[in-house]
């Protein structure tokens, strides 16, 4: 279970707070959506969960399975099961996709006390998972994300997620830059990972994604706080009324 308690955060060396007291609980087995206007703090929340050093938590706590993760390095959090799917996945020239996946998978397996995957074991797993995301194995022999289309980058993120077998998945604007077909493939990949032992936090600006990844709960984040929570119908309401009532100016 993810418990966020009165979380305040800002960018290091900047006075302006971005998160101003977030309280949120995501039980295992559930998918929660965070919706909100631009500048509401959605991506900050994602980065703070993953442990990015540019952000400073000034108050509050984040507990994962009862344990505070605030003092943990990003790689320790990953070993504890936290995974962030980036809004803008990074390009890594010179590192082949397969090398990256294998290094990452074995790093977390080692820290979780599991045996590292041998080359044949790894190849079998990766081929199987890549096929489900419609990713050609040849693409994984190329440097990570270099020259990939928006859709390819997002599929590559979901493949990384599948390989690392996280228990807390945070998806930051995974729908941005996707056409309908790519959105369907990515959503199917995410849905395949839904399970009783896994919590998911889906961050999005638009309701569109939530037609494909149907959430158990929806929370509205605006001006650094959760303003409203409800069932999946809240997303549809927001699509019609917009974020105006939460103090956001129309774009």
């Amino acid at each position: 279970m993810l418990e966020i308690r009165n979380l305040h955060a800002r960018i290091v060396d900047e006075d302006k707070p971005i998160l101003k007291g977030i309280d949120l609980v995501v039980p295992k087995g559930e998918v929660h959506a965070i919706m909100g206007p631009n500048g509401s703090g959605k991506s900050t929340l994602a980065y703070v969960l993953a442990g990015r050093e540019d952000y400073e938590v000034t108050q509050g706590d984040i507990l994962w399975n009862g344990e505070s993760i605030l003092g943990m390095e990003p790689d320790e959090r990953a070993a504890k099961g936290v995974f962030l799917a980036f809004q803008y996945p990074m390009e890594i020239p010179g590192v082949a996709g397969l090398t990256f996946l294998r290094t990452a998978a074995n790093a977390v397996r080692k820290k979780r006390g599991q045996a590292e995957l041998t080359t044949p074991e790894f190849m079998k797993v990766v081929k199987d998972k890549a096929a489900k995301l419609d990713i050609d194995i040849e693409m994984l022999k190329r440097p990570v994300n270099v020259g990939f289309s928006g859709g390819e980058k997002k599929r590559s993120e979901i493949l990384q997620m599948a390989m690392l077998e996280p228990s807390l998945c945070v998806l930051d604007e995974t729908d941005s830059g996707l056409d309908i077909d790519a959105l369907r493939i990515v959503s199917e990949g995410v849905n395949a990972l839904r399970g009783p032992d896994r919590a998911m936090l889906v961050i999005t600006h638009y309701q569109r994604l939530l037609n494909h990844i149907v959430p158990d709960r929806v929370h509205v984040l605006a001006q650094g706080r959760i303003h409203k929570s409800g069932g999946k119908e809240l997303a549809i309401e927001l699509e019609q009324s917009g974020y105006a009532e939460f103090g956001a100016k129309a774009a």
Partner: protein
Amino acid sequence: MNVAVMKTKAEQAISEGFEAVAEALPGGAGVRTARKAALGRFGALGLPHRRIEEWKYTDLKSALKDVARPAVGDATPVTIADVIVALGPFARLELPRLVLVNGGYRKDLSNLDGVEGYEVKPLAAALAEAPDTVGEGLAEVAGQDQDAVIALNTAFMTDGALVRLKSGVVVQRPLLVVHIRAGKEPCSAAIRNIVHVADKAHARLIELYVSVPGSTAEGQVNVLTEIILDAGAELDHVKCASDTGRSTHLASLVLEMAADAVYRGFQMTEGVGLGRNQGFVTFKGEGGKLDLSGVLLGRGSEHVDTTLVIDHVAGACESRELFKGVLDGEARGVFQGKVIVRPDAQKTDGKQMAQALMLSEAAEFDSKPELEIHADDVVCGHGSTSAELDEDLLFYFRSRGIPKDEARALMIESFVGEAIDHVEDESVREALMSVARGWVAPGRG
């Protein structure tokens, strides 16, 4: 003004060293005359210093305090097992090899059995057989009579590899030419390699400069590799200096390319106290192609310099240079790339790029491109970047569970990997990556 009194201690030691060993150096009367003339040139030039433009960032006059005795007739005991250890990841390639120890050919350590297509002969042996015919080729290094390091090489050269490929001969397996520093006593070795690839032949050559673990960290290696590529000839050439961090490594490449010749070169330098790789390339015929890339790795107070002069005398030739430096501690990296396009060299296409990854604030990277263009229908470009490790990328790795040190290592490897990727042979590329990995994180290689 009396120039003689201005000689530094090192310059004095070099002149005295020559007097002491001159009689023992190989070659007949012709070669001896050439050596004396070269020493005379060196005497007039002195050690290069920062006021000479080509040596702006590498002041040998002030850096070289002492010069170890010249290596002549060295007999330091070295075993095959030592050679295998010294070869590091290149040992796995099991290539035919010509081995030199402290400046001298060692038949007992070489293995030229599997050599096919190449004609290989140690320089000293060739000089003993036909002192004057071989000697003529050594006396003059094309157009390089104003370079003090090359003059020193001519004066002191003891041995090296003469490699020849006959017209149309195409080889698949590279030939390894290895120089090994060994023993407790520091010495100055001078190696001369001469490579001639006849028309339409394709050669593959790897030069390694290494040392036996446990031998002195001091010492100097001066190597000059002269390469002549005839029309349509091809050469894949890798040069790797991987030493123990204090020695001086002065390497010169003089390359002449006839029409349609193709040269793919890669240079890696790590673990040398003071390293200079200078290259002088001349396109003599149209249609030549040069792809020269390299990696400089420096830490501590190491100084690694790459200086290239690409002279487009003939038109319609293509030159590509990509050099990557990774600098930690107080290390200093230098890249100077000069491209000359002569008036008749229309349709020249020349590009160069130098990139440095700075791992510490005290490290320094000096990059100086120079374009000297005398023709009007050409495409020439250059670029240079210098950056620290990308923190955003580091976070991306770590968010995937990869610990900081491993993430840093992977990032450095990916940075240098882009240059190493220019090497065609996969097993050679893997050996070079292994040297780089060993530098990044000792024990990983």
